[in-house]
């Protein structure tokens, strides 16, 4: 006899991450997935879906609502229990690190839940790496923009060409052991506070 497919509900403040997670679960053959997107009536939504597993991100304030549901499990048809108990401390820690938490109905086999949680942890971690990379790319772009603006200020004030202006910024940064972008930001800020022509 094969087990009934797991029904999974996902609550995530980030729709993009929810999609990444759903995608991963589907690839693993878990197809009965429900995203909970409405902000209110969480209890009713979960009760209507009647999931075996609820996955929730740790950035969601609604975790306290789910927790309450767990505390008064008579409110839902089947009692919901936090999956990871004290004996599963290492998995709980991995889940906390990844930023995800799981609630499951009582009586499900642990191996089935473990597979879902392992996958969620992996997807959450992958999503965070992507975000970090995106953030780095964005800040590199922002750095370049501010350095360009600072170069223009130096070029105008000092009558230098672009290469010389950049060299000046770089040597100032080296002398003060700071990043060029920091020096550039200070210069651009000073210019905007004091007006053109006063920063030289």
């Amino acid at each position, binding site marked *: 006899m094969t087990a009934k497919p797991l029904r999974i509900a996902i609550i995530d403040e980030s729709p993009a991450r929810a999609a990444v997670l759903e995608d991963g679960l589907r690839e693993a053959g878990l197809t009965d997935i429900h995203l909970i997107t409405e*902000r*209110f*009536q969480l*209890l009713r939504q979960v009760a209507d879906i009647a999931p075996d597993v609820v996955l929730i991100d*740790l*950035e*969601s*304030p*609604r*975790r*306290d*609502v*789910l*927790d*309450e549901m*767990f*505390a008064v499990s008579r409110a839902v048809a089947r009692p919901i229990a*936090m999956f990871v*108990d*004290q004996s599963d*401390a290492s998995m*709980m*820690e991995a889940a*906390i690190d990844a930023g995800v*938490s799981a609630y499951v109905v009582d009586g499900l086999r642990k191996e089935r839940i473990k597979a879902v949680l392992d996958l969620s942890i992996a997807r959450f971690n992958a999503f965070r790496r992507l975000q970090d990379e995106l953030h780095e790319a964005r800040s590199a772009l922002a750095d370049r923009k501010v350095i360009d603006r600072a170069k223009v200020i130096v070029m105008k004030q000092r009558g230098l060409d672009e290469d010389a202006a950049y060299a000046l910024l770089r040597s100032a940064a080296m002398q003060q052991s700071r990043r060029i972008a920091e020096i550039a930001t200070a210069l651009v800020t000073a210019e905007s506070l004091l007006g053109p022509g006063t920063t030289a």
Partner: protein
Amino acid sequence: MSLTTLRIGFLPLVDSAILVAAHAFGFAEAEGLHLELSREASWANIRDKLVYRHFDAAHMLAGLPIAATLGLSRAPTPVIAPFCLGLNGNAITLVRSLAVDLEAQLGGRVDLADARSTALALAALIKTRRAAGLAPLRLGVPHRFSSHNYILRYWLAFAGIDPERDVQLVIVPPPLIVDAMAAGEILGFCVGEPWSSVAVETGVGDIVALGCRIWQRGVEKVLGMRSDWAQANPETLAALLRALDRAARWAGDAENRTALATALARPEYVGGSPGLIARVLSGRLQVSATSEFDAPDFLMLYRDAANFPWVSQAQWLYSQMLRWGQAPAGAAAEAAVRSVFRPDLYRRALAGSGTPLPGANAKVEGALATPLAVGSTRGRLSIGPDRFFDGRHFDPDRLGAYLQGFDTTLK
């Protein structure tokens, strides 16, 4: 000198002020500590990250260390509270339309100084609604073990409103609570600041009662930590308590209010409007579009031994857990509750500070109608009036008799 790093979780609420002050104004560094503050979205996160040692300590609802120690929602984990992060700070807010009905019921205005009349007027409204066949009022609180839940229930039950039958209490996370009211999901709430003030400012609701006018010295947030962490790190713990004591003294001084409000308003701490936060800190609250109310005790960060962890306050919380069927009765549970608040650790850490230290560990809560000079191991100490609005006294040695005195106790 190298600093000892401590990871501390907090929720973005105005009563995280002492931790924020310790972090932002150098009080932690002065004690050799580097605080890594982690802004969290739920009390469930705070509890789990503390239990699983991701945090060394945390800003906690005072009921949470008790619930964790008793194992009320997870396997029991001894968590202690050696320092209170302030007293009071809560308000009860009703959606505008209901506040208007309440004003009419009260003959034109809600008097924030008179929580009794307001509760009775609400009870009358609830009766009228019931007679008209309307659904019970749905009211939001942040957490089942929060003082907001207990204070709201205490206030409702005084007027004969059974919180389990005559209203529907639901859990709503504070950051969503004003939106939930605006969307009609809830018609009232009891919550910490800035959320009641935000409801007033956005025209969604009016403040109709204040925590400090229901219990004048109500326990609110504490610094919580695993008991085993405290045992293993006594020197670090003492340094942390000294840093928080200095930060509390600074934060409680009206002269520093603007600086503190400006820091709290930064997005990495609480976020929001510095002006609104400064008003909350001053206790001069905008309670409706047209009225202010001055409550100097609204949120107390330092004076009157506000940080001293009275064991009797933990016992009062436990009495309410018993009253509402949340916790088991019995000598074992009572002994466990007495081990949660740790005045001994507070005294040991602050023996060399200028902060007066109460000589007793517990008091009869609600017995003081006027400020009283109390026994103190050093310095002059007076503690302010700590009355409950219904005039009851809570003697922690007479728990059973106290609970029998409530006629709305669920049978």
